[in-house]
């Protein structure tokens, strides 16, 4: 193991110990135990290197080199003027907004006065310490036991001290979105943050979750490693938006882990705009018959941004559907990696799995590595996958230009058109508007002639 990695582990281990000794954020014994085991697991597996198949194209060494110090709760409280958060607000989620500074829940900045009765949304630490805390034993970090965590997920668990907890009881429908706003305020320090989310949607319930990662300063350099676990119970329905609009110098390595029960519906849309390096690990378990899922995403990289999506979709039961459509736009010297594995287990008959990754290169120096993978161990299934990498279509371009549209505008229009299917899918108008603006902004364009 290299020096850097050893040092890094020492950094995190030391930070872990100081966190352990802090009295204020004590968690139930079983959680402390979980955290300790996670740290041990992290120390045992270490950070991946490019020798690991899963990290062949994504070098996480900058995380090791960065000497990032885990943020502490006390560093963050009261330092943020609520006015500074206005830029991040989605008005659809008014009264259902949880704000986290450097991963720590901030009750002052949050507003939760519009939640339906019975719905819990708040600090994960409070939930764990509360009366029903032990019931969460079954859910928290379940992936660690079933599939074994990677280093980043383990590290997040090791530093679990706060986070978001959303619980939607049986038959309750939360019509409007719940916004989990994770803001990093690093104050110029190289900090590490570990946002954590646990969502439990009971049978027949319904909710929309916006998981949002951003920073107060656009050029801040920090390491953010969020983990979100979502449990969609039988016939429940969860829409999940992940908006990754971190600082342009951030390093972001995230885990999304979802389990879907019988006839459950999970519909996710990930938008990747920020970070110098963004890696998203998705693990979707279709555990109940007849579940239906959408796992869609859009990434737009520019400069030297590196955006990597690794997803594993496990079809464990029959009659489940997974549709995955990822679209990437890459400009300048940006680079993307897409690796999508669909695993159809024996017995998962009548699986309907579709996966596509389409990439649009706006520059000759941009680069894409895409690899859809199907592993099928059932015989009566409908599975398809495909990937494309291309540039703007010359005939389409000429068609627009031949109507008097300036070439630059025509190119922007086509680029915008490429992303449209994903943008159009977004049902929260403010997210859609924001994405529209972000795309046009990156094209240095307006679609106004």
């Amino acid at each position, binding site marked *: 193991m290299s020096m850097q990695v050893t040092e890094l582990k020492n950094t995190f281990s030391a930070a872990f110990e100081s966190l352990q000794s802090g009295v204020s954020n004590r968690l139930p014994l079983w959680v402390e135990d979980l955290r300790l085991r996670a740290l041990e697991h992290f120390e045992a597996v270490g950070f991946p290197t490019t020798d690991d198949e899963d990290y062949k194209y994504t070098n996480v060494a900058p995380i090791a080199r960065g000497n990032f110090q885990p943020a502490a709760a006390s560093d963050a409280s009261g330092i943020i003027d609520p006015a500074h958060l206005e830029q991040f607000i989605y008005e659809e989620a008014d009264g259902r907004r949880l704000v986290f500074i450097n991963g720590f829940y901030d009750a002052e900045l949050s507003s939760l006065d519009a939640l339906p009765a019975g719905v819990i949304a708040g600090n994960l630490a409070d939930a764990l310490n509360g009366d029903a805390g032990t019931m969460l034993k079954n859910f928290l970090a379940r992936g660690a036991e079933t599939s074994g965590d990677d280093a980043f997920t383990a590290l997040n668990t090791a530093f679990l001290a706060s986070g978001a907890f959303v619980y939607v009881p049986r038959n309750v429908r939360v019509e409007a979105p719940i916004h989990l706003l994770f803001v990093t305020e690093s104050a110029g320090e190289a900090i590490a943050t570990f946002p954590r989310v646990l969502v439990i949607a009971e049978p027949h319930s319904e909710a929309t979750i916006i998981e949002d990662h951003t920073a107060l300063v656009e050029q801040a350099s920090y390491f953010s490693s969020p983990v979100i676990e979502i449990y969609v119970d039988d016939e429940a329905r969860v829409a999940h938006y992940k908006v990754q609009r971190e600082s342009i110098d951030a390093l972001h390595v995230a885990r999304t882990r979802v389990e879907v029960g019988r006839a459950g519906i999970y519909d996710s849309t990930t938008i990747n705009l920020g970070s110098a390096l963004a890696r998203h690990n998705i693990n979707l378990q279709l555990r109940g018959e007849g579940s239906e899922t959408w796992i869609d995403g859009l990434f737009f990289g520019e400069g030297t941004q590196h955006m990597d999506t690794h997803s594993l979709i496990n079809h464990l039961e029959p009659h489940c559907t997974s549709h995955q459509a990822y679209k990437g736009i890459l400009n300048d010297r940006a680079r993307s990696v897409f690796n999508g594995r669909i695993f159809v287990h024996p017995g998962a008959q009548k699986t309907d799995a579709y996966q596509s990754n389409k990439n649009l290169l706006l520059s000759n120096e941009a680069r894409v590595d895409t690899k859809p993978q199907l592993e099928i161990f059932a015989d009566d299934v409908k599975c398809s996958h495909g990937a494309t990498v291309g540039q703007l279509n*010359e*005939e*389409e371009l*000429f*068609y*627009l*230009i*031949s*109507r*008097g*549209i*300036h*070439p630059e*505008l*025509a190119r922007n*229009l*086509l680029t*915008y*058109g*490429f*992303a*449209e*299917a994903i943008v159009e899918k977004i049902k929260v108008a403010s997210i859609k508007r924001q994405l529209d603006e972000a795309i046009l902004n990156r094209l240095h364009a307006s*679609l*106004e*002639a």
Partner: protein
Amino acid sequence: MLEIRDLHATVDGNEILRGIGLKVRAGEVHAIMGPNGSGKSTLSKVVAGHPAYEVTGGEVLFEGKDLLELDPDERARAGIFLAFQYPVEVPGVSNAQFLRLAYNEKMKHTGDEELDPLEFKDLLAERAKIVEMDPGLMSRSVNEGFSGGEKKRNEILQMAVLQPKLAMLDETDSGLDIDALRIVAEGVNKLKSPDKAIVLVTHYQRILNYIVPDFVHVLYKGRIVRSGGKELALELEEKGYDWVKELDREAATVGAQ
């Protein structure tokens, strides 16, 4: 309005246009006919400025100015319009948005008032009537999933929105059903005026019953081998192209001597 002199053009090194001459005055309708592969679409695309075609000789003047100097978008804004034989599908770009952008680019060029989406909606509804276009097609992506006939109708709708000085309609009639042909042709007639000209590429006499040409030209192997009045179209319909090909062979023999 348009004057083409001894125009030669190649695509991927193959000479497709081999000395075309054509003069179109304001208010005129010209029909261009000729067998498949003779270069009709090539000619219209060269005039529109398609980058795949290289002009290797001759000149094209539009309103007395060198057209070949202009970029394709500049040509369009100057008043040139090509209704494509095969209209292109543009996924993700709505027809209404596309039309408004094109319209506003033109307005900006002429110093006229640009329209916001609401104002443009009214204008579009007005123009759509000219070709009896289904309003449902406005909010869909440009030509995506349109039927062959709908695509052709959409080309003429674009013409109605942009009101070009010179419209080249490349086989707009093919793919249209009998009623649609009448509607679209009548639409084109409504857009006709003494200060505008139309060049119509077609294989069939039928559309010429609606849009009556002042001149008919026969293009064969990259040259105009015969020009005449509207009766020439009838003659072609009756006799086919064999005699025209014969003319070309004679011309070639004469040229060789």
